[in-house]
């Protein structure tokens, strides 16, 4: 699904705190520049999490995943790469889940639970770093295009269109095929395929922001363009970037899983969910857990990031939150 990404999400041009109904927050908003540091945001976050159990669960899932990823070596019961002699049954088949191996073993006699935990680390690492890189590229290109306008904008946006024309997965696959599969290249390739979405969004935002009075005021005072972009426009982009980066992590994780499934992602023997699914598919009749465990983990992870992104949209961008209610 590449086409709908930038078409059907709520219009990001609205700046936070414009449609806040709570009188206290309006007072607070009048006192301070409406940015993330605005007083009351912490309270509003807790309040909206309390009201919205789905958001609460998805945020908790994301936090748990982060903890699992960071403390993988401490949490995993075994070494994910170790092939246990008792990890295979007498006929060479993987061992069913039992008290020793909670999620059973894989066809190499390795502990599936430990591999799942280290797989979470890979997924999150690739997802977060790739999206971070993509955001940086997207902000720079989109920001300059939107602010500069004219020929610069045309050139940068046509460049964006060119990259956007390649179906993102096929684009990543072709680049990986050429540069060689390893974790660093997977991250770079996803970032290189995904920045276009953010560039388009940032450009749209900057186009409307640069017409605002505070930018004109800064210009009149002789503030340089670079400084206006950095100090006056960038802070207004933060909410939208947080929202779209959260959604971007979900997409990046899916791309990483797809690449690893095809055998051109994170190299073996390192554990990754996509690769585990690919290895497990031949054993589905005898060892269904090999396929179900990583698949369910992927769905839950991607779902949690998508829902957290939706919730952040409502939280950081109250002007559009009413749509769909």
């Amino acid at each position, binding site marked *: 699904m590449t086409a709908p990404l930038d078409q059907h999400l709520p219009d990001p041009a609205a700046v936070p705190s414009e449609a806040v109904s709570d009188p206290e927050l309006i007072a607070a908003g009048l006192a301070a520049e409406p940015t993330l540091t605005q007083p009351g945001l912490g309270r509003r976050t807790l309040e909206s999490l309390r009201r919205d159990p789905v958001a609460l669960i998805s945020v908790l899932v994301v936090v748990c995943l982060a903890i699992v990823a960071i403390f993988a070596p401490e949490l995993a019961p075994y070494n994910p790469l170790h092939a246990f002699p008792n990890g295979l049954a007498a006929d060479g088949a993987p061992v069913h889940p039992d008290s020793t191996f909670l999620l059973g073993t894989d066809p190499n006699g390795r502990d599936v639970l430990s591999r799942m935990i280290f797989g979470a680390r890979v997924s999150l690492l690739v997802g977060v770093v790739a999206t971070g890189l993509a955001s940086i590229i997207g902000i720079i290109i989109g920001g300059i295009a939107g602010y500069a306008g004219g020929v610069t904008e045309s050139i940068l946006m046509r460049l964006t269109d060119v990259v956007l024309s*390649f179906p993102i997965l*096929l684009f990543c*696959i*072709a680049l990986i095929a050429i540069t060689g599969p390893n974790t660093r290249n997977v991250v770079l390739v996803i970032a290189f395929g995904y920045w276009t979405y953010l560039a388009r969004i940032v450009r749209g935002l900057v186009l409307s922001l640069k017409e605002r009075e505070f930018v004109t005021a800064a210009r009149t005072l002789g503030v340089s363009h670079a400084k206006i972009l950095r100090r006056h426009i960038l802070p207004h982009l933060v909410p939208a970037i947080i929202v779209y980066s959260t959604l971007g992590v979900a997409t990046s994780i*899916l791309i990483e899983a797809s690449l690893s499934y095809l055998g051109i992602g994170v190299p073996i023997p390192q554990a990754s969910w996509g690769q585990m699914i690919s290895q497990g598919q031949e054993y589905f*009749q005898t060892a269904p857990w090999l396929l179900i465990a990583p698949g369910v983990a*992927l769905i839950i992870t991607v779902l949690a990031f998508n829902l957290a992104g939706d919730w952040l949209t409502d939280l950081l961008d109250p002007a559009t939150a009413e749509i769909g*209610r």
Partner: protein
Amino acid sequence: MTGWLARRLAQMIIVVFGVVTLAFLFAYIVPGNPARLVAGPNASPEAVASIARQLGLDRPLWSQYVSYVGRLAHGNLGVSFALQGRSVSGEIWHALPYTVLLAIGGVIWEIALGIPIGIAAAYRPRSIMDRFSTLGALVGLSAPPFWLGLMLLYYLGYKLTLFPLSGTGHPLIWYLILPTFTLGVGGAAWYSRMVRTTMLEVLRSPYIEFARLKGMPERTILLRHALRHVLTPVITMLGMDLGYFLGGVLIIESVFGLPGVGQLAYSAIDTLDIPMITGTVLVAAVFMVVMSFVVDVAYTLVDPRVRLSRR
């Protein structure tokens, strides 16, 4: 209108040129010597050098680029490294029917599932139906297609033997039901959410209020008046999806063993068959660019508001 069309056309041509250039650079930045790949690992240095000369690899970059574009203008995508002597465009041409059928089937599932579910959800917001469809849409959007495909293959194909396991056969449609469903389910999830959101927005507009006040039944309002507004963005997205699917849905094709364009690209990766990789990627990108142009023009023709703003 004519001015806009000319500008849009020029824009499309520029983007196609960019796509071609990028595809060319892909082939150029590949590490290792393509001539060695063609010649095979045991070839002598002389043989490699002679093949490099044959392929024009010893010429400067710009000269290679000019002849690349020149060949492309004749529909020649080069010769496959791995499949000795076969032309890349010929291979793609043979694989295309499967991809086209898969793409059309995927789009049909998107419409058949997405629109009715979206309408049902908008009919009674926050009802059980609405919540179920939202949950279903979210899972549909979050499930990795390759995993979903494997699950369907196992339960419906292997366990219940309702569908053939993989590959192709007669009648072909039987072999396409599961792949097209897997392909379409993510999009259907998107559409159902979008139809719901757009519909709820439209339902608040004054003319719908008026229809309600006249005593028009809710069902008629939904299907006759509100649906119209929802369909325009859906058609736009369908066009984009079709362009995307036509590029070859590699994952689906490889899970279900369909010999389409995506499968061609995938098998080219193993052999590092650069002409085949760049050829398939190029074809996919051109499909996308052309479809987005077609959609833009169609949109302009269909919707008078867009037409006026683009005069």
